[in-house]
């Protein structure tokens, strides 16, 4: 008799996996490989020169700086929003809950022109902020605002389910044992929430780095000041500098891959933590 190792009896494994791999290769893997192959037209020195010109360096600083800042803001306000949505009931809660996904559903170009209209000198918020010396539209601050807008759902939607699972009793127990609210938050809630919050942060960060549509309208796109890296790629393409565009793209791709790996690592870590605690 053959071994009694449990065998999977369901059909379709070869077909479904084969189709998955074929489609994945055609649409994603081979085209991405093309980018890496294209850069081999450069020598290493040429490649390094293209990706480190002052204008490109300035765009990295803006893109990664603004994306990081936006992700930090989102981690804070996203946690707050998720907290309010899970712990309290108030009229219109369903509506707010649905509205959280708006930045995800709203096309980025629409978000871009809408934010510009709101924050420009004669817009609803711009006309209040600008006399007080805060210029948002057409400055790096505008980039942060746009990236915060598009990144918000990611933090809320990763933190919310974990908060729902965390029972209010744990917090009440901590309170009855004499912990004040801040201690409860720091010692009881935050440790449980940490992996989800980090994952949401990383997702918002990854999304913000690559974002193009919503940013270009509000940024003003001044070289060295408010020009993001994806725009540099577009500009190089319009000048038919395909190799240069690809070189900058490869730098961004490598960073995105690293971020994606860390997100998956975080999710693995959090699922392990959850299964240990249970």
């Amino acid at each position, binding site marked *: 008799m053959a071994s009694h190792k449990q065998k999977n009896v369901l059909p379709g494994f070869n077909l479904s996996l084969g189709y998955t791999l074929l489609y*994945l290769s055609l649409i994603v893997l081979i085209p991405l490989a093309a980018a890496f192959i294209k850069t081999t037209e450069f020598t290493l020195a040429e490649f390094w020169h293209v990706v480190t010109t002052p204008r490109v360096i300035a765009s990295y600083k803006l893109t990664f700086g603004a994306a990081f800042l936006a992700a930090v803001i989102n981690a804070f306000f996203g946690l707050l929003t998720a907290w309010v949505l899970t712990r309290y009931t108030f009229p219109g809660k369903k509506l707010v809950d649905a509205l959280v996904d708006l930045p995800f559903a709203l096309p980025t170009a629409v978000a871009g022109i809408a934010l510009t209209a709101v924050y420009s000198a004669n817009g609803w*918020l711009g006309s209040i902020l600008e006399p007080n010396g805060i210029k948002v539209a057409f400055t790096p601050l505008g980039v942060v605002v746009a990236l915060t807008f598009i990144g918000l759902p990611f933090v809320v939607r990763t933190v919310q389910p974990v908060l729902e699972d965390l029972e209010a009793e744990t917090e009440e127990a901590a309170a009855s044992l004499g912990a004040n609210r801040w201690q409860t938050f720091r010692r009881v809630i935050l440790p449980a929430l940490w992996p989800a919050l980090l994952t949401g942060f990383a997702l918002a960060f990854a999304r913000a780095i*690559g974002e193009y549509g919503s940013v270009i309208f509000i940024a003003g796109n001044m070289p060295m000041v408010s020009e993001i890296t994806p725009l540099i790629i577009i500009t190089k*393409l319009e000048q038919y500098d395909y190799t240069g565009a690809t070189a900058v793209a490869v730098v961004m791709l490598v960073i995105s891959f690293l971020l994606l790996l860390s997100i998956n690592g975080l999710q693995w870590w959090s699922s392990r933590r959850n299964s240990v605690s249970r």
Partner: protein
Amino acid sequence: MSLFLFIPLAAVFTEALRKGFETYIAALVEPDALSAIKLTLIAAAISLPLNLVFGVAAAWAIAKFEFKGKSILITLIDLPFAVSPVIAGLIYVLIFGLQGWFGEWLIDHDLKVIFAIPGIVLATIFVTFPFIARELIPLMQAQGKEEEEAGLVLGASGWQILWHITLPNIKWGLLYGVILTNARAMGEFGAVSVVSGHIRGLTNTMPLHVEILYNEYNYAAAFAVASLLAFLALITLGLKSYIEWQSGRSAKASEKASDE
């Protein structure tokens, strides 16, 4: 916080109607706008079924079977999410563009991919690639495979199992993925902007049409077209809430059924 989200949305509709309702309608029925709407619908109509079939196939393989390299495969499916849309457009230019791998072959055969509809469809497929698969994989993993195995024992074929057992079980998750994919497909800007060439009336999708009008300082028309897209986003959110409510109800119903 909800103000931060709500104000831009309100701004779209106010700006769109600023010059009156007639200007608003005029901006939407103008031939270039109509052709942009048509192209957007075509791109979504092609990319959606393709990603749907892929999503179901990938989820079937990943959720129902154990194999080596599974977590690598899941990471690879997530890849398009982490890649900037601009880069998504760029890679297709590198392959199908004039100087690209197939550039000369395409010219010899009088075919156009870049600056034409196939390029736009490809870019749209790329950016919406993970959504349905990501929605289905955890759902199908949670549901396990007992029901499918029962179907097999009772003599159902593979396709019958898929059609009568698996698909009804995952219908809400599937619908949710479809709606997300559709919203992204119709609204994609960065990737499509790289491959489209911005030819008015020919290769302009709705978001690109918004950009052109906006850069021509034709704000009323730009916001009018943008309001259509914003409306689409609101429908998406409404459907999503409805699906969550429905799937919550059916989950409760099945809990109740198993209690009894």
